[in-house]
């Protein structure tokens, strides 16, 4: 069995997809430096396990073939061998050190959120996400934030006995059933982005596999994590902590664009907020004016 997995995994490791693919066997490779490191770590651990598995199971198979009573095998009576026992205590220790060492490095790299150029606040709600752009290139962003929730077509299809076919939910060719939102989170490429994550009602968890990390969104607590997205694209994820009935229906979509494009977009958003604010104050004036008239 191991061998089978091994072969197929090899085939897939090379062509690991950015978003879940049918018959995908292996971890998503990702589009950030850390996600690549995590992927390498994962493969290292996988191969270590395969090798140990081959040795251990191999020995068992040999024993089962050679020392079966039906073949007239006579049982020995020994039951100790200190040398052996020392060996197979020490060797695993070394193997584990070999795994823990790189793991420690990657972890420390991932934990260092300093020198980020963009800060986005992510808040989990039952059952949607809110994104607020806090600061970009050292300047605080003027109130840009929005709610992002499951796309309407998916939402219609996922109702019990909706009679609609999940396979029909597509967006330019990609079947995005339950993996699409009304308003994606727009992010710049090549910029170190810091996510500050919190929950508003219960615990959620913000996870986009291609960004290579997962952070719990806990009410009353703020966690942070970072990512530098290397190539533009649409990256999809899901809430990864049980948060009630619609836990399965609060996806995450990141739209990574070039910094220039991102800046345009952000500016547009800021203007929108200003206009909106102006409109509202005007509204307020007229309403207060009315009674006198």
């Amino acid at each position, binding site marked *: 069995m191991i061998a089978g997995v091994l072969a197929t995994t090899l085939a897939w490791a090379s062509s690991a997809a950015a978003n879940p693919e049918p018959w995908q066997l292996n971890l998503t490779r990702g589009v950030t430096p850390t996600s690549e490191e995590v992927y390498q770590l994962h493969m290292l651990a996988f191969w270590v396990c395969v090798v140990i598995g081959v040795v251990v199971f191999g020995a068992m198979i040999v024993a089962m073939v050679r020392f079966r009573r039906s073949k007239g095998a006579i049982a020995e009576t020994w039951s100790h061998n200190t040398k052996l026992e020392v060996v197979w205590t020490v060797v695993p220790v070394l193997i584990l050190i070999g795994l823990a060492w790189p793991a420690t490095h990657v972890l420390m790299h991932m934990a260092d959120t300093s020198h980020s150029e963009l800060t986005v606040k992510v808040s989990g709600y039952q059952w949607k996400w809110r994104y607020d752009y806090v600061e970009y290139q050292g300047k605080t962003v003027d109130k840009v934030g929005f709610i992002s929730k499951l796309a309407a077509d998916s939402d219609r299809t996922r109702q019990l006995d909706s009679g609609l076919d999940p396979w029909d939910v597509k967006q330019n060719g990609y079947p995005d059933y339950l993996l699409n939102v009304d308003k994606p989170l727009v992010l710049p490429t090549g910029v170190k982005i810091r996510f*500050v994550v*919190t929950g508003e009602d219960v615990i959620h968890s913000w996870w986009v596999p291609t960004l290579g990390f997962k952070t719990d969104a806990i009410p*009353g607590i*703020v*966690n942070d994590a970072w990512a530098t997205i290397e190539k533009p694209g649409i990256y999809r994820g899901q809430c990864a902590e049980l948060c009630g009935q619609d836990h399965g229906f609060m996806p995450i979509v990141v739209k990574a664009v070039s910094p220039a494009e991102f800046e345009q977009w952000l500016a547009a958003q800021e203007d929108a907020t200003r206009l909106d604010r102006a409109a509202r104050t005007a509204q307020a004036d007229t309403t207060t004016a009315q009674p006198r008239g």
Partner: protein
Amino acid sequence: MAQQGAYYVPHGSKWPIIGSVGLFTTMFGAAHWVNDSYRIGKPVFFAGIAVLLFMLFGWFRSVIQESLAGHYNRQVDVSFRMGMMWFIFSEVMFFAAFFGALFYARSLSVPWLGGEGHGVLTHHYLWDDFSATWPSNGPANVGGAFQTMSPWGIPLLNTLLLLSSGITITIAHHALKAGHRSRLLVFLGLTVLLGAVFLGFQVHEYREAYEHFNLTLNSGIYGSTFFMLTGFHGLHVTLGTIMLIVIWLRCARGHFDKTNHFGFEAVAWYWHFVDVVWVGLFLFVYVL
């Protein structure tokens, strides 16, 4: 001791099943009660308690009879001792959970909310006007401002009471071993008395807390840990006192002799355990 060296395996007993029914009824009632369907919850709960008391009474009666009939040899006695010791260990672990909560809140969660070390972001984004102190009812000032009990009043008194009760019960034990029946009864009675007084003060303290200090179960993490720890301890003191009373009666009836009086020792152990827990409480809940 009729048949020395024979391990006593009791034949069928109906008390366990009665106990199970009692437990079930109690819990079933409690579940309804907390979901405030009082009308059945409360009565069912107390019905269950009644069944449990009945069971305890009957079960212990048969055990006592067997013991007096001399069915138990040393080995059986050892089984009982192990049973009691491990039961007390499980109690220790139960309190450990609540002490753990207290330590976690005091040394981690509250400071973090106040922005120390790991909590910088939490503080900055959510609770930037909260400064960590202990006692605390959290950034949202849950339950409103409150005062805490001074350790040097009733709590100190209670500490002295329990500690001395530990001494009196030891004296009683020695008296039992020496066969001084009257001294045994006096000092055991004294222990009961001290326990009762402790409980009285505890009740008084709770009333104080609620009426004058606005320190309630809802006073944030401090109120929660304070009342859950002292409350569960108080519950154990109550049980211990009842057990002491039973043992006093058994002594008066002359159930115990110099050499075998495990019932007495078991209760003594339990009492010392309750004692030690209180010392921990006094230090970590009141003084520090």
